[in-house]
C-alpha cells in the first residue's frame, strides 16, 4: 500500500508545482497580491509532498519491500541499514527523486529566506523554480517511476546494490553534488525573473550572490567527495579521470565560479550585467546538461546510469525547453546599453573579467573535449577518444594562468589601479614565491617545468592572499583588532583562494612526484616505494556482512621505523557475482601510501600495486577550504541583517552604503 502513497504524493507535488509555476507569476504580471500570496504556501506544499514521497521510498528500502522494482534492483536484505538508506539514491529513479527533493528544498528555502525581497520578485522567482520542478516531476512520473511494483512474482531477495556503491561515498557524494547542481537553479530563477522585469541591477546581483555561493560551495564539496571516493574505491589510486560524467560536474563548477566573480562586479559596480545574467543561465543549463549526459547514455562513462533512449529524449527536451526559452528571453530582454562606467585596464573589474575569460575558456574546453566525440560521430567522421592527455595539455595552462592572475588581481582596486604601484606591490610576493617554489622543488628532488609552474601558481596565490590580509589588517589598535575588523565575506574570499592554492599544489605535486609501482610479491617480500619500505606479511581470508575477501597484511616502514599496517582486500560479492579491489591507504597530510591487491599470479605470488602519493589529500582538503570560504562569505553581516527583524532594516540600508563605497571590500 505504501509505495502507491509515495507515487500519489509525487503526483500531488506535480500538481502543486504546476500551480506554483502559473499562479504567482500571473499575480506578478497582473499586479494582484492575492495570487502572489500563493507562492509561499505552494512552495511549502510541494516540498512536503516530495519529502513524503522520498520518505515512502526510504521506508520501502528499510523494510526490504522487494515488490517495488527499484528496491529489488538496488538493494538486498543482507545489506547493512546505512547502505539500504543510501541505496535509495543508488540508481536512476531514486537519485532523480533525490534531485527533485533538493529542487523542492531550494524552492522552499527561497520562499523562507526571501521575506525582505519585493513580492513581485519573489513570486516570479518561485514561479520559475516551479516550472523547473514541473519538468522534473513529469520526468520522474512519466519515465522513471521509482514506485513501480513487480507483481505478482515478488522476488525473494533483491539484486543487491552495486558493490562500488556500498560505501560512505554514496551516502555523501550524490546529496552534496545535487545540492550544488540544483542550487544553481536559484541563481537561474533570479536571472529569469530579472529579465522578465527588466530590472537587472545591483540589487538583483546582490540577491543572487549568496544563493550562487552556497550552491557553488555544495558543488565544490560534492565534486571533491566524488574524487576522493574514486581515489580509494575504484581501486587504482586515480583521483580524476576526465571522464564525461566527471567533466559534467566540472562544467557548472567552472561557469559557477565565473558567475560568482562576475556577480561581485555587477553588485559592486553595476557593470557587465548582460554577461552575468548569461552566466547564470549557462551555469544552470550546464547542470541540466550534466544530468542529461549521466542519464542518457550518449557518452560512455565509468559512472553513468543504465542508458535509456526514452529518458534521454525526455531530458533533452527538458534541457532544450529550459535553454531555448531562457536564451530567447535573454536575447530580447538583456540590456545592450553600455553602462557608463569607467574602468582602467588595471582595474579590479578588468582583473575579474580576465578571470571570467579564463574560467569560461576552461568551461568551453572541457565542454568541447567532452562533446567532440559526439560531434564527430554525428558527422560520420569516426570514433575518437579524448582523455587525460588532451585535458592535461590544455586545462593545466589555464589553471596556472588563472592562479597567476588571481595573485595579481588581489591587490587591484575598483575603477583604477596604478600600474607602477601594483608592480611595486607585487615585487616582494613575487620574490618570496620564487624562493618558496624553488625550495619545494629541492625538497621533492627534481625539476620539471610544469611542476614548477603549478607549484609557483599555488605559492603565488598563497603569498599574495596572505600579503593582502596583512596589509588590510594593519591597524593602530593592533593586529588582532585589524584582523577582527575584516568582514566575513573577505575571509570567505581568503579561504576560497587559499583552498584553490591547495588544490593546485596537490594536483601538481601528486601528478609530478607521485610514485607508482606494480610489483610481484609473495608473503615475506619487501619493496621500496620512494622512501617507504613495504613488507608483504601475509594474506588470508575474511568474511564481511555480504562478501568474502582475500585479506592482505602489509607493514610500511620509513627509515626503518614502522609507520603503519595496511590491509588491502579483494572482495567477492556473491549476490552480484562481482569482484572488488578494496585498496588500503595510510593517509597523511603530506603523503599517502596506497596499496591495492591485483591478480593472483601463482599460488602464493600476487600482483601488488604500491603508490606513494604526495600531497594528494590537499586536493580534497583544499576543496573543503574553498567551500568553507563560500559558507563564510554568505554568513557575512550584510546578508544576516537582511534576514533579521524588520526593526533593523534601516541598518541594512546603511550597511549597503558602507559595502558599496569601500573599495577595499572584496567578497569575491
Amino acid at each position, binding site marked *: 500500500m505504501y509505495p502507491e502513497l509515495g507515487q500519489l504524493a509525487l503526483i500531488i507535488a506535480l500538481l502543486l508545482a504546476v500551480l506554483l509555476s502559473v499562479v504567482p507569476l500571473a499575480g506578478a504580471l497582473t499586479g494582484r497580491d492575492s495570487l502572489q500570496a500563493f507562492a509561499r504556501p505552494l512552495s511549502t506544499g510541494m516540498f512536503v509532498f516530495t519529502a513524503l514521497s522520498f520518505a515512502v521510498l526510504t521506508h520501502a528500502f528499510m523494510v526490504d519491500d522487494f515488490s517495488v522494482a527499484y528496491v529489488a534492483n538496488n538493494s538486498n536484505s543482507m545489506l547493512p541499514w546505512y547502505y539500504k538508506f543510501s541505496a535509495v539514491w543508488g540508481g536512476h529513479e531514486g537519485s532523480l527523486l533525490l534531485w527533485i527533493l533538493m529542487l523542492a528544498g531550494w524552492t522552499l528555502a527561497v520562499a523562507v529566506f526571501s521575506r525582505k525581497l*519585493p513580492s513581485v520578485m519573489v513570486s516570479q522567482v518561485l514561479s520559475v523554480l516551479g516550472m523547473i520542478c514541473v519538468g522534473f516531476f513529469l520526468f520522474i512520473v512519466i519515465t522513471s517511476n521509482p514506485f513501480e511494483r513487480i507483481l505478482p512474482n515478488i522476488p525473494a531477495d533483491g539484486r543487491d546494490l552495486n558493490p562500488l556503491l556500498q560505501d560512505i561515498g554514496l551516502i555523501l557524494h550524490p546529496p552534496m553534488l545535487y545540492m550544488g547542481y540544483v542550487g544553481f537553479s536559484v541563481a537561474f530563477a533570479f536571472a529569469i525573473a530579472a529579465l522578465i522585469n527588466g530590472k537587472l541591477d545591483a540589487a538583483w546581483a546582490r540577491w543572487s550572490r549568496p544563493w550562487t555561493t552556497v550552491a557553488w560551495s555544495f558543488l565544490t564539496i560534492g565534486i571533491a567527495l566524488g574524487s576522493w571516493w574514486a581515489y580509494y574505491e575504484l581501486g587504482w589510486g586515480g583521483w580524476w579521470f576526465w571522464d564525461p560524467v566527471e567533466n559534467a560536474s566540472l562544467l557548472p563548477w567552472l561557469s559557477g565560479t565565473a558567475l560568482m566573480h562576475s556577480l561581485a562586479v555587477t553588485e559592486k559596480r553595476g557593470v557587465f550585467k548582460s554577461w552575468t545574467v548569461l552566466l547564470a543561465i549557462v551555469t544552470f543549463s550546464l547542470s541540466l546538461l550534466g544530468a542529461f549526459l549521466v542519464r542518457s547514455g550518449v557518452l560512455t562513462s565509468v559512472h553513468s546510469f543504465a542508458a535509456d533512449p526514452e529518458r534521454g529524449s525526455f531530458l533533452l527536451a527538458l534541457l532544450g525547453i529550459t535553454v531555448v526559452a531562457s536564451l530567447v528571453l535573454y536575447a530580447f530582454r538583456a540590456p545592450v546599453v553600455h553602462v557608463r562606467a569607467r574602468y*582602467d585596464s588595471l582595474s579590479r573589474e578588468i582583473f575579474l573579467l580576465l578571470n571570467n575569460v579564463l574560467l569560461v575558456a576552461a568551461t568551453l574546453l572541457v565542454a*568541447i573535449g567532452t562533446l*567532440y566525440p559526439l560531434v564527430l560521430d554525428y558527422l560520420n567522421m569516426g570514433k*575518437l577518444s579524448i582523455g*587525460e592527455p588532451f585535458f592535461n595539455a590544455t586545462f593545466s595552462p589555464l589553471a596556472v594562468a588563472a592562479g597567476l592572475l588571481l595573485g595579481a588581481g588581489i591587490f587591484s582596486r575598483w575603477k583604477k589601479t596604478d600600474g607602477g604601484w601594483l608592480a611595486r606591490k607585487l615585487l616582494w610576493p613575487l620574490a618570496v614565491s620564487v624562493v618558496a617554489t624553488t625550495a619545494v622543488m629541492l625538497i621533492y628532488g627534481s625539476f620539471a617545468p610544469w611542476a614548477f609552474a603549478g607549484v609557483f601558481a599555488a605559492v603565488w596565490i598563497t603569498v599574495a592572499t596572505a600579503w593582502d590580509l596583512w596589509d588590510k589588517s594593519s591597524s593602530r589598535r593592533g593586529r588582532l583588532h585589524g584582523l577582527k575588523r575584516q568582514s566575513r565575506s573577505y575571509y570567505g574570499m581568503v579561504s576560497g583562494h587559499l583552498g584553490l592554492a591547495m588544490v593546485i599544489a596537490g594536483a601538481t605535486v601528486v601528478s609530478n612526484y607521485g610514485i607508482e609501482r*606494480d610489483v610481484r610479491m609473495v608473503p615475506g617480500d619487501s619493496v621500496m616505494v620512494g622512501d617507504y619500505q613495504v613488507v608483504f606479511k601475509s594474506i588470508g581470508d575474511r568474511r564481511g556482512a555480504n562478501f568474502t575477501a582475500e585479506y592482505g597484511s602489509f607493514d610500511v616502514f620509513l627509515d626503518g621505523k614502522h609507520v603503519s599496517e595496511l590491509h588491502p582486500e579483494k572482495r567477492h560479492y556473491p549476490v552480484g557475482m562481482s569482484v572488488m579491489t578494496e585498496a588500503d591507504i595510510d593517509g597523511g597530510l603530506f603523503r599517502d601510501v596506497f596499496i591495492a591487491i591485483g591478480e593472483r599470479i601463482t599460488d602464493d*605470488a600476487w600482483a601488488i600495486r604500491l603508490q606513494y602519493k604526495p600531497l594528494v589529500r590537499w586536493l580534497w582538503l583544499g576543496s573543503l577550504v574553498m567551500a568553507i570560504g563560500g559558507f563564510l562569505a554568505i554568513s557575512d553581516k550584510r546578508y544576516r541583517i*537582511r534576514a533579521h527583524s524588520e526593526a533593523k532594516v534601516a541598518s541594512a540600508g546603511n550597511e*549597503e552604503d558602507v559595502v558599496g563605497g569601500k573599495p577595499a571590500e572584496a567578497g569575491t
Partner: protein
Amino acid sequence: MRFMLIILAALWVFAATAQAEAPEFYDFDTQVEEQRFRNLNAELRCPKCQNQNIADSNAPISKDMRDQVYVMMQSGATDDEIVGALVDRFGEFVKYKPPVDSRTIVLWGFPFIAVFGGLLIVAGVVLRSRKQNPESALSPEEQARVKRMLTDKDPSSRS
C-alpha cells in the same frame, strides 16, 4: 634481400611465440621501462569497457592489449609503433590522446581561440570604457532604487 626476408620471418615467428607466452605478470629490468609501460597503458583505451584505460580495466581484451604492449616493448618497438599497432587493429578510438589532424584541428585549436577571443573582447571593453567619462558605479537613480528596494516594507507599490 632473401636473407632479410628470412630474418624477418624468423623475427615474426619469434614475436608470435613471445605473444603466446605473454606473462601473467610484467617484469621489467628498470623502473624507467616499468614507468614507460604504465604510461603507454594509461594512454590506451579499452575498447570493450566503459571509458577505462587498459591499465585499470580487468576486461580480457585489455589483458591482450597489455600483453601486446609488453611484447612489443621487449622486442624494442618505440611508443609510436606500439600505439600504431593497436590503432591499426582497433582504430583511433583506443587512443586517449587524439592526433592533431583535419578531424581534430577544431578541438586542439579551440583552447587558443577561446582564450584569445576572450582577451580581444576584454580589450574592446577597456577601450570602449576609456572613451567615456569616469562616473560612479551606480547612477544616482539606481542607488536610490536599491535603497528603496532594500528598505521598502510594501513592495507591491512598485509593481
